[in-house]
């Protein structure tokens, strides 16, 4: 207890002497008791921050960043669910029909010889319009497209003798989708009214014939045909 007054005994000037006198007054001692035992105003030490705390805080900040990226709904004002997927409503790439795709392929690859209307060039390029080679068994026309065709062939009563190039993997290597498209196109244009040839059918035919390196002849074309696959139901 610091009940004793503050003794500054050594050098006593007049003021300190006065204070000392005052301090010895009992009432004054009473009044100032709290003040006399009051400790210094607080101050701070300068111990360093423990290093493990820094790792803890770094881990927290990392977690915070990951959480915000994961659950912030891409910071969109209209995202309300933590599992919001910013790409869910994005427009999907437009899927055009096999027929339309085939029309494009035909324009680029076929129309130069067989002509835009599919009527060919008399004596040189056989017509596709009304050709039973085209509208018949889908495997026939697929074989021609995949491996090409050589030699004489009779189309709509006229005889042709040319070289049809291969468009399959051994030739110009159109994709299976493009092959399916262009075959579907020629089987369904200019009054032709045959079944669709799907990508899956072309994939099966390619598996069968991609190893073949020589083009077909007209005679071979009708040999060993498989059953006509069920066409996909019309949409």
């Amino acid at each position, binding site marked *: 207890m610091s009940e004793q007054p*503050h003794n500054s005994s050594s050098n006593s000037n007049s003021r300190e002497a006065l204070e000392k006198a005052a301090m010895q007054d009992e009432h004054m001692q009473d009044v100032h*008791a709290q003040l006399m035992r009051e*400790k210094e105003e*607080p*101050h*701070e030490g300068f111990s360093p*921050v423990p290093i493990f705390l820094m790792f803890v805080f770094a881990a927290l900040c990392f977690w915070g960043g990951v959480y915000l990226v994961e659950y912030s709904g891409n910071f969109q004002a209209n995202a309300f669910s933590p599992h919001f997927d910013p790409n869910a409503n994005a427009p999907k790439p437009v899927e055009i029909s096999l027929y339309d795709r085939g029309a494009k392929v035909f324009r680029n690859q076929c129309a130069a010889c067989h002509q835009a209307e599919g009527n060919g060039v008399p004596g040189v390029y056989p017509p596709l319009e009304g050709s039973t080679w085209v509208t018949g068994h889908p495997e026939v026309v697929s074989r021609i497209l995949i491996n090409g065709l050589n030699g004489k062939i009779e189309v709509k009563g006229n005889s042709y003798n040319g070289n049809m190039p291969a468009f399959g993997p051994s030739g110009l290597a159109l994709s299976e989708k493009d092959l399916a498209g262009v075959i579907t196109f020629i089987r369904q244009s200019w009054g032709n009214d045959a079944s669709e040839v799907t990508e899956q059918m072309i994939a099966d035919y390619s598996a069968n014939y991609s190893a073949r390196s020589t083009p077909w002849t007209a005679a071979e074309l009708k040999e060993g045909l498989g059953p006509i696959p069920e066409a996909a139901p019309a949409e």
Partner: protein
Amino acid sequence: MSNSSNESPYSANSAAVRAELSEIDSSIRSAALFFVISAVSWLMVGTVFALLAAFKAHEPDFASTFEFLTFGRVRSAHLNAMALGWGNNIIFAVGLWIMARLCRAPINHKGLLLVAGIFWNIGLTVGIAGILKGDITSVEWLEIPHYATPLLAISYALIGVWGVMAFRFRKGDHVYVSQWYILAALFWFPWLYVVAQIMIIWFPARGVVQSVTNWWFAHNVLGLWLTPMALGTAYYLIPKVLGRPIYSYYLSVLGFWALAIFYNWAGVHHLIGGPIPVWLISAGIVASVMMVIPVIVVGINHHMSVVGLHKEVWRSPTLRFIVFGAISYTLVSLTGSAMALRSVNEVTHFTHFTVGHSHHGVYAFFTMIMFGGVYYMMPRLLKREWPSASLIKIHFWASALGITVMVVALQTGGWIQGLEMNNAEIPFLETVQNTIPWLKARSISGVMLTIGHIAFAINIAWMLFAAGAVRAKQGPTLLADTKEGGNV
């Protein structure tokens, strides 16, 4: 720790500093005493409302014949009496006093401070009477009707300005950590209050912006007003009573700025699952978890300042309360960070767990530290000692045990309630009935707190009015025997 001379080794050496502190104490005496008396009065009023609301939770017919005593009004009256009556008044007393002392700047024009304080309490009385009358707004934490709030805002401004003025005319180069917290809070509170009033009551924002503002305000009243004031008080009184410096200036800096940066975002986690942009909620969740940083930092800083002196803590009424509050700060904040996580919030949302959490924060942390502040401040202001150590002990044990029972009961019961509410096979009414035992435990804890408050109020009244009976010379009122120098 033995006395080597006539002088206590802890004492301030400079007689000039002591004289200065004495002068500052006397400059704020009248206003601070007014605020303490007001705060304790509101504490008692709020306690009565709290008991009413607690009983009604399991006895719905209790005192329900009077319209003004229905649950909705009594609960809001309790909240506002405690937050703005007890909380703000005790902050005005302890916070301004600490600010003036640390700035070594006496409060000039103390009469104005007193008048502003009187108007604050008039405004609050009108507001709480308005709540009971039925003019309550529908906004939680802002229930006070619009005719009382401008008076509150203006009188707050006239009170808070004295803290700012003390800082403006401070002496010395170093600004102590308590000064940062108190100065910042003196600006944060009016910012929160005015923005919330304008955006919700006066010129209501449209749609969910109101809810966002509401929870931004309500959570920040705890985090940017009550918390910094309590931390500032703890930072002042721990080294002051122990006569030992705060452990680390760097930790103080880190703790303060992390609080200032992260807390403001945290309130939105009350709206998890609500129809507001999810990034706002996620940002609130991240900020709530980031609050772990200032909490750990402050916890370590306080702990390292106290470590080894536990006997002195136990002996000093001030530190016994303050250390209880500081430990509670760590616990309640870590709980709060966990509650902000979506997976935890799915269980705790809309249950008594949240109620337990808010009492954990406002009572076990803030209020206990402020009790400690009053136990230190009053002897300096009055130049008297506390009349009864037994009453202080009763106060401490009733409050400490009471709040522990309350938090454990509400959070256990609330967690069970949340699990049951998430289980679609349990009928809703059954989940409500299953909370009743926990709510009864809450009422018991409320009675315990009431006992503590009564002991506190008696001790203060005794100290105020039994003037000559208590002589300072007999030494400070301590809670345990000591053969060594006196500490309070």
